[in-house]
């Protein structure tokens, strides 16, 4: 579906989704909500009993919370790099998927930092990050970078919403409660589609797309440096910044494919999101997994070949205690997407989606085997009789909060899809830019 689609057709298409909620929607939402409540219960237990209820101990001081944090921050790349660059390059096929990508960005950016809060021993002092900041600390860099990213991505998302809010405001047949109509009116900011307004929106979007890409790279590099600046074996690596950036794009692209598949099925968008979109985003995933595999290989090869004592202990651990996870994260997770998209016969919508699921889960596992094995191999050997001090295994509370994070992601996405069309109406109804108008004028 390349060309222009009339607004009316699109609005008619999305009207039922915006007007009412199906039983299936409510059921799924309730399930997510229950998972969320279990997570909150876990959090309350953690706050009242202390962090002793988690699997974290003096050696493995960071567990799945940090893994989730970097994982969710990585997912936010879908919008930043994917939608940002697709926007700047004016790829015509981007239109049906761009909104999903932008929503992934903002939602995962909101969820990610919560996992840092769960990891902090004194949640009541979280404001000290702002009243006693020390600029030397990579965490302070992170606080600055993430808040900037959040604001930037939110503005970018909002810019792409304004025209749709205006369309929804002017759509008289839309049968939604009064407060929602009023909200559309407020959020549309008096947009009437005049040439000046159109130009202003287009210019702002271009600027924000470029900025969001830059900020996203900074955010994820800073995140990588939290690990990179320490002396810990496995973390103290110069390529961690770019490696994390690539890994983030990898997971973001994977998640975009998964969501494309879900919304295509659930909202019956088969004629908007076609195989072509899956193949195009799939090719993006292929390229990124090739890069990501290259970085992974390069990082481990140099550690293994030169074999500084601590590095070789770490690699021994990866190939013994973490063998299955290592194989899944760094072989299966990288090769399967490449094979599926690379071989024409395998390149079906279902296969690409399976590849995407593997890539996203493999990336989570990859983060896990970056964080945990390193903390289990400190410079001075762990001499302790308590098994939980030597080996980390997450407790139910940590899993509950992890799944609560996923549940909140789903809930926010479901709510967003009820509030605005999941495919940008304004973008779809926009006439194709002519060849001369591309990228830079």
């Amino acid at each position, binding site marked *: 579906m390349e060309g222009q689609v009339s607004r009316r057709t699109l609005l008619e298409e999305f009207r039922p989704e915006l007007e009412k909620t199906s039983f299936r929607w409510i059921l799924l939402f309730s399930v997510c909500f229950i998972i969320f409540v279990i997570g909150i219960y876990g959090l309350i237990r953690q706050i009242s*009993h*202390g*962090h*002793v209820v988690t699997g*974290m*101990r*003096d*050696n493995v*001081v*960071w567990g799945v919370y940090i893994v989730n944090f970097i994982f969710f921050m990585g997912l936010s790349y879908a919008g930043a790099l994917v939608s940002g660059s697709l926007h700047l390059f004016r790829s015509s096929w981007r239109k049906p998927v761009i909104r999903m990508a932008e929503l992934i960005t903002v939602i995962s950016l909101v969820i990610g930092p919560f996992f*840092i809060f769960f*990891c*902090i*021993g*004194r949640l009541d*002092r*979280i404001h*000290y*990050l702002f009243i*006693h*900041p*020390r600029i*030397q*600390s*990579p*965490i*302070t860099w992170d*606080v600055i970078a993430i808040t900037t990213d959040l604001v930037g991505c939110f503005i970018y998302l909002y810019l792409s919403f304004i025209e749709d809010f205006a369309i929804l405001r002017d759509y008289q047949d839309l049968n939604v409660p009064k407060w929602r109509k009023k909200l559309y009116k407020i959020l549309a900011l008096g947009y009437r589609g005049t040439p000046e307004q159109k130009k202003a929106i287009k210019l702002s979007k271009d600027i924000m797309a470029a900025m969001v890409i830059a900020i996203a790279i900074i955010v994820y590099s800073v995140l990588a440096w*939290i690990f990179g*600046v*320490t*002396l*810990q074996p496995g*973390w103290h690596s110069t390529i961690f910044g770019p490696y994390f950036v690539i890994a983030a794009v990898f997971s973001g692209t994977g998640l975009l494919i998964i969501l494309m598949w879900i919304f295509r099925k659930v909202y019956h968008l088969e004629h908007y999101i076609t195989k072509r979109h899956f193949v195009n985003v799939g090719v993006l995933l292929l390229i990124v997994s090739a890069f990501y595999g290259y970085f992974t290989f390069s990082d481990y090869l140099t550690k293994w070949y030169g074999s500084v004592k601590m590095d070789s202990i770490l690699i021994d651990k990866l190939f013994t205690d973490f063998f299955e996870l290592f194989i899944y994260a760094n072989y299966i997770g990288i090769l399967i997407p490449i094979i599926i998209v690379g071989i024409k016969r395998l390149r079906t919508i279902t296969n690409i989606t399976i590849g995407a699921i593997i890539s996203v889960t493999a990336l989570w596992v990859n983060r896990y085997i970056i964080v945990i094995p390193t*903390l289990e191999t*400190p*410079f*001075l*050997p*762990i*001499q*302790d*009789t*308590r098994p939980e001090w030597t080996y980390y295994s997450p407790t139910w509370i940590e899993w509950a909060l992890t799944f609560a994070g996923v549940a909140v992601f789903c809930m926010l996405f479901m709510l967003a899809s009820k509030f605005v069309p999941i495919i940008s109406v304004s973008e779809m109804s926009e006439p194709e830019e002519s060849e001369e108008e591309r990228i830079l004028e």
Partner: protein
Amino acid sequence: MEDDRKNKSRREFLKFGLTAGAASLVGISGASVAGKPDRNEKKKSGRKVKVLTPEGKLVEVDESQLRPAEIEEPVGIEEAREGLPNRKFVMAIDLAKCKNARKCVDACQEGHYLPRDHEWMKVQLLQDSEYTHPYWFPKPCFHCDQPLCVSVCPVGATFKRNDGIVLVDNQRCIGCKFCMTGCPYSARVFHWKESEVEQPDVEYSPETNVPSQEGTVGKCVFCADKLRNGELPRCVTACPMGVIYFGDLIEDAVTNGTETVRFSELIEERAGYRYLEELGTHPTVYYLPTVNRMFPVESGFDGLEEDIYNRYEKFIHPRLKKK
């Protein structure tokens, strides 16, 4: 200013409460009670206080007869951040003398009201490679001159003082544990839960890190409170073998409590080194290698409680086990 005064008066009030409490328990003012005239006798206040004499009798005395007991209250957070002027503390640990008597660990635990599983001073059994010798390795915080833990702390809860000591302010610590991943020597421990050891009712000082707080980081403080009073750290005085030398780099003198030596000479004669020098953290704790060892390394297993022995079991070289 107003705040300062308020703090001060509060501190003095606490101090008074503490000394009065201590006096009544220990019977410091026994002399006055026994009827000998006190030199600095103040005017009678008229208020009577009940105290316990050394003989165990409960007597009532006038408040003015109480003299403050010789209990030094640890300094507050602001002073503790400054450090002692013109000092640069240094430690040298003589590995040749260590036989894992663990008295340093006990003294540290006791002195800082730490639970058993929360050690600031650890004694590890190390062996660098298969054919090198095993040795006992007491490990406090190294109080590095380039402390990564201080660099990475996002809120300035851990800091390096001008006398070289690295401390943690547990009133500031947010418990992010970044310092723990930053420290390559695993010197830091986290309060995963409320301490099982009852904490004394004193005003918090980073120099002792007492009372402890759940969800914050703790570590060896070089007994900064003792140093302020001109005393040696607890681990130094507790060690029966005189393993740990402590002193001042500016004075170039260190002592293990029985002998005092020039630090530079000690390091030169005994070929002192710093552990993991290549990491560039510049520790202020030096080690003297196990040349002319005073005890065989196996003697370190003598009299160990089972759970302590089990810590080392995996690390005991088969050659040692055969004996």
